[in-house]
């Protein structure tokens, strides 16, 4: 073997080995995080977590008010944000297409999609919290809605674009206006895609911490008042994990496990629906 050939073989082997090594690092990180999360989370888990309120420093308690608050604000945020995102996505896919305005909206939406969520928190603080004069669950929900809009706009547009043009043309040929086509042909055809987008938006929103810090704040007690600060899992985790109290830290880990599992289940279901959709489509061909 010539020296040149040897050098090339060795270089090839070295880089491929590095690539395997990189993958190993990535998988080890994921495994390490999940393992810590499960072992510490299960250690902090008990029925108290789901039945009792967040405790004062140094005593036992649960996360009931925080779980409730997270669920309420996520639900409200999605109810406000997703329809807006879906309508906007419908405009881009069915009406706007390649117009200048649509290009601009796509560009701005992609920026909103990756904009730091803490900025959204500051925005809602300035617009709602300062005006209302106090922190509130409503402000928290609105900030989550602002985060949900770009996510569901993007997925809606992508999913509607997958609907074959022939189906829309057939509807138009029957004399239907575009709104009829969209509601009776396009949405039903893209149904599973839309559900996927919804699940992804919920997954994205339910782990958000930064925008809730100065909109919903936190509340140690049970509260269903949307006009008052409300406890929520991410902020409770943030506060409890950084505290010196063992009980609080255990609850933080339990909360972290609950959030992560919820999000993983949502992402995996979204993926499964998409996979099902693709196999259906190829079966039909």
């Amino acid at each position: 073997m010539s020296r040149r050939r040897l050098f090339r073989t060795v270089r090839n082997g070295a880089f491929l080995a590095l690539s395997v090594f990189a993958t190993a690092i990535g998988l080890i990180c994921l495994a390490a995080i999940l393992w810590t999360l499960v072992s510490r989370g299960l250690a902090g888990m008990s029925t108290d977590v789901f039945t009792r309120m967040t405790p004062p420093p140094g005593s036992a308690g649960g996360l009931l008010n925080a779980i409730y608050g997270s669920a309420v604000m996520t639900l409200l945020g999605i109810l406000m944000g997703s329809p807006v995102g879906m309508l906007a996505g419908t405009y881009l896919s069915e009406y706007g297409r390649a117009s200048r305005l649509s290009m601009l909206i796509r560009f701005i939406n992609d920026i909103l999609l990756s904009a730091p969520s803490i900025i959204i928190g500051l925005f809602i603080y300035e617009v709602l919290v300062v005006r209302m004069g106090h922190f509130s669950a409503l402000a928290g929900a609105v900030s989550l809605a602002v985060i949900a809009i770009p996510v569901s706009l993007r997925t809606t547009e992508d999913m509607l674009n997958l609907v074959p043009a022939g189906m829309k043309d057939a509807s138009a040929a029957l004399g239907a206006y575009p709104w009829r086509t969209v509601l009776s042909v396009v949405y039903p055809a893209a149904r599973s895609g839309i559900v996927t987008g919804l699940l992804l938006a919920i997954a994205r929103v339910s782990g958000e911490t930064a925008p809730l810090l100065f909109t919903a704040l936190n509340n140690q007690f049970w509260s269903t008042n949307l006009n008052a600060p409300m406890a929520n899992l991410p902020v409770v985790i943030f506060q409890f994990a950084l505290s010196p109290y063992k009980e609080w830290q255990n609850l933080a880990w339990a909360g972290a496990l609950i959030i992560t599992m919820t999000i993983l289940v949502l992402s995996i279901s979204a993926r499964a629906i998409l996979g099902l959709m693709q196999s259906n489509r190829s079966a039909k061909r």
Partner: protein
Amino acid sequence: MAIIDQRHAARQLLFERVFRAATLSAAILVLVILGGVALSLIVGAWPALHQFGFAFITREVWNPVTDQYGALAPIYGTVVTSLIAMALAVPTGFGIALFLTELCPSVLKRPIGVAVELLAAVPSIIFGIWGLFVLAPMLQRHVQPWLIDHLGPIPLIGKLFQGPPYGIGIFTAGLVLAIMVLPFIAATMRDVFETVPPMLKESGYGLGATTWEVIWNVVVPHSRVGMVGGIMLGLGRALGETMAVTFVIGNAHRISGSLLAPGTTISSSIANEFTEAVGDLYTSSLIALGLLLFVITFIVIAVAQWMLRRLERRANASL
């Protein structure tokens, strides 16, 4: 023959107008939101910017007692932690993408790909507590003393690795950020690598090239567009990441030569201090930090998109 019902037709047209207007206004709301974010940040930051002027971004002082604020320390922390993250995550992400597209047995392709994408779905606060309770103590005990002993005495770069091993600090934050952006970079690069036509790769192999040579001379040049896009999006995420950094940065408003020392970033300063900020100038200074972050990330993401679209167009034109 059916006769067209005039009233029915009119109602259909009305619905059409309403529906179109509804979708259009939802789409325009996206623009309004971005405008609103920019405007509210400028209004909120105005008192601080008016008081300190341009010096706001060149001064290191951050003193709530004397009401003097400068953004240099958070800017420094944001830039340095993001650079550390990108330096670690880009090569690793490249390696993962390469493994998934070129080396991985097809049985493992899906599970590993899904695992990488799930890592991207884990919320940032989880990375934060993991960094604080697991990574930081480990670094403090095993990694940082070694860095201090072996790299500390070296001239020039030694300065970066001096001082006591705190565990938390700029270096740890950069490491946590690297783990966070890794799945984004890996997944984008994998998707781009998969778009390379097999014919091109096989031509390379046909000429007798090794796997690495095909990757470096065929795959990489062909997918430069998407790679840059993935890296820029990862950078945008690293710059603005809040919770993961807040746990492990140490929140110290000063610039120290050592990477092992505590520092602060723009987003972690806001997260840590905003609800406790007393006084209009303090709050306003924090909002000014937010405005700064908004401008920086806006530029990074916009440039990424602009490059992607321009290169895409060029690729289309050359076909």
